[in-house]
């Protein structure tokens, strides 16, 4: 198992290198000259050839591509992503706190999503075709088919305005989490619980369930076995939910004025703030690789066939 873990973690290193290279290369695919972006952002009235050359030198853009890439990579490893073209401040001083806020929202949501998906998935699978199963599936279908901004607006109107129970926006207290987390849980758990349910159902018909029952084992123990064997698809989905939500909270963050990545990135993209975009893409890509590795490791712990023990 230990060799598998080490191997799997080492395997993600070349992947991360490729990602960082592509992220850095993005700069060069853009039709815009970064120097002009910087000068525009600084409000320079007249852009002359000398000024462009001067800025280019000061930004280090006149050095060869490979040199710049490795410099940038070494700096990134220390969380130094350069300075924003627009504000001139270090990228991480802007991106870091926003990333942390989004991460908090994401992790709380993902934990709630996992709990709801498993509980609903198991209950529906055990009561397949019964009233509970049908109504949970019906209601979740109804709720997930609503766009999240609409759902968010409805919830703010009902819980914050009409009942005055919860804050409408911001992240001042634990209560601020309730509505945005609820919106995310409804949109994701409503889909993910079906994955748990269907893999539970396919496991229910397996011979090992029949044999365990034929041996007189208690149903609780059998359900636990089925759940463990059903979790493999779900684990991958749950783990990937973290980076997916990290990258797609824009709508929810906007509605609830959550000071997170969403708003920051949209602004950076609109103002062509390359260092910010680069850092954002890199952070998200790294999150994808990390959580993908994590899901492989959890699955290996669950499934002895994946471990290939000697």
């Amino acid at each position: 198992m230990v060799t598998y873990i080490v191997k799997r973690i080492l395997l993600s290193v070349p992947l991360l290198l490729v990602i960082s290279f592509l992220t850095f290369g993005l700069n060069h695919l853009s039709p815009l000259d970064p120097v002009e972006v910087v000068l525009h952002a600084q409000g320079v009235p007249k852009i002359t050839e000398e000024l462009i050359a001067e800025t280019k030198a000061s930004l280090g853009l006149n050095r060869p591509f490979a040199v710049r890439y490795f410099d940038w990579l070494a700096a990134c490893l220390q969380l130094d992503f350069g300075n924003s073209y627009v504000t001139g401040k270090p990228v991480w001083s802007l991106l870091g706190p926003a990333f942390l806020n989004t991460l908090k929202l994401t992790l709380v949501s993902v934990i709630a999503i996992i709990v709801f998906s498993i509980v609903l998935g198991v209950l529906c699978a055990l009561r397949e075709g019964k009233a509970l199963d049908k109504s949970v599936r019906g209601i979740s279908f109804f709720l997930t088919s609503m766009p999240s901004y609409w759902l968010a607006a409805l919830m703010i109107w009902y819980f914050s305005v009409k009942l005055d129970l919860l804050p409408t926006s911001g992240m001042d207290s634990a209560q601020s989490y309730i509505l945005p987390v609820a919106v995310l849980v409804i949109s994701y758990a409503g889909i993910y619980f079906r994955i748990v349910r269907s893999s539970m159902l396919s496991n229910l018909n397996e011979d090992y369930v029949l044999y365990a029952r034929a041996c007189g084992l208690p149903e609780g123990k059998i359900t636990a076995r089925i759940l463990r064997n059903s979790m493999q698809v779900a684990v991958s989905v749950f783990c990937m939910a973290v980076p997916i939500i990290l990258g797609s909270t824009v709508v929810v963050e906007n509605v609830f004025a959550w000071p997170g990545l969403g708003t920051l990135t949209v602004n950076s993209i609109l103002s062509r703030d390359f260092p910010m975009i680069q850092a954002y893409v890199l952070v998200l890509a790294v999150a994808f690789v990390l959580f993908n590795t994590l899901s492989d490791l959890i699955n290996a712990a669950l499934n002895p066939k994946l471990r290939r023990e000697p």
Partner: protein
Amino acid sequence: MRKNILEVSHLRVWDEATGNVLVRDSSFQVRPGSCLSIVGESGSGKSVTCRAVMRLNKSGIRQSGDIRFDGVELGRLSEKEMRNIRGKQICMILQHGMSAFDPSRPIGVHVAETLARHYGWSKSEITAKAKSAMESVRLKDPIGVLHKYPHQLSGGMLQRIMIALALMLEPDLIIADEPTTALDTVSQFEVVEQLMALRERIGCAMLFVSHDLGVVGKLADDILVMKEGEIVERGSAEVLFSNARHAYTRELVSAKRVLHEHFTKVMGGVDLADR
């Protein structure tokens, strides 16, 4: 004469959703210590009958009729009482050893959980008993096997582990649902040998399902022939093999004879139909 260990009368099994009748009006008895074999082609209702006795058919499959086990009407028992009978008094051996055990836990976990559930033995008692049972079904390195996962063992080995578990549980009735069908000839031979030894050792009755008449001839005292959910012929093994009345049975027997000759040749002259 002692009363029958299992008495099934007017068993009817049907699929609630489609209305398909899987077993119609089937009645049979198993004498204590004897082996009743159900033969017939796939889909004839053999496995469904077995599961009906265990009350383990899939949800949506309904059954009616009386199933008396050791004088107790199984249909009247609560699910909890039924669980106490399953494993301890009626033990099942399945066709596919490869899928019969939880794929993500070592074999020993299932063995230990089952034994602890019915007998409340301590861990060391279980290990000791498991070791001797595994040795008696001729598994080498019994303790090592207990720590293996199902995918690390062969179908024949897993089948013998199920037999070893039955040996430890000492049930009154063993239901073996095509235990040799998925195995190669050599493993089949070993499993049949172990099943015979098992009956000798604990003196249990057996309900043995197969479509392999060579194996049936070696184990069965009585035979039921099923076709499309109905019992078309029944009788003692000797009579049935030499003097089948129903055309379907004759067909099965003659098809088997050809195979049997081949089997005898392969196994080096061990005659399976000489009971």
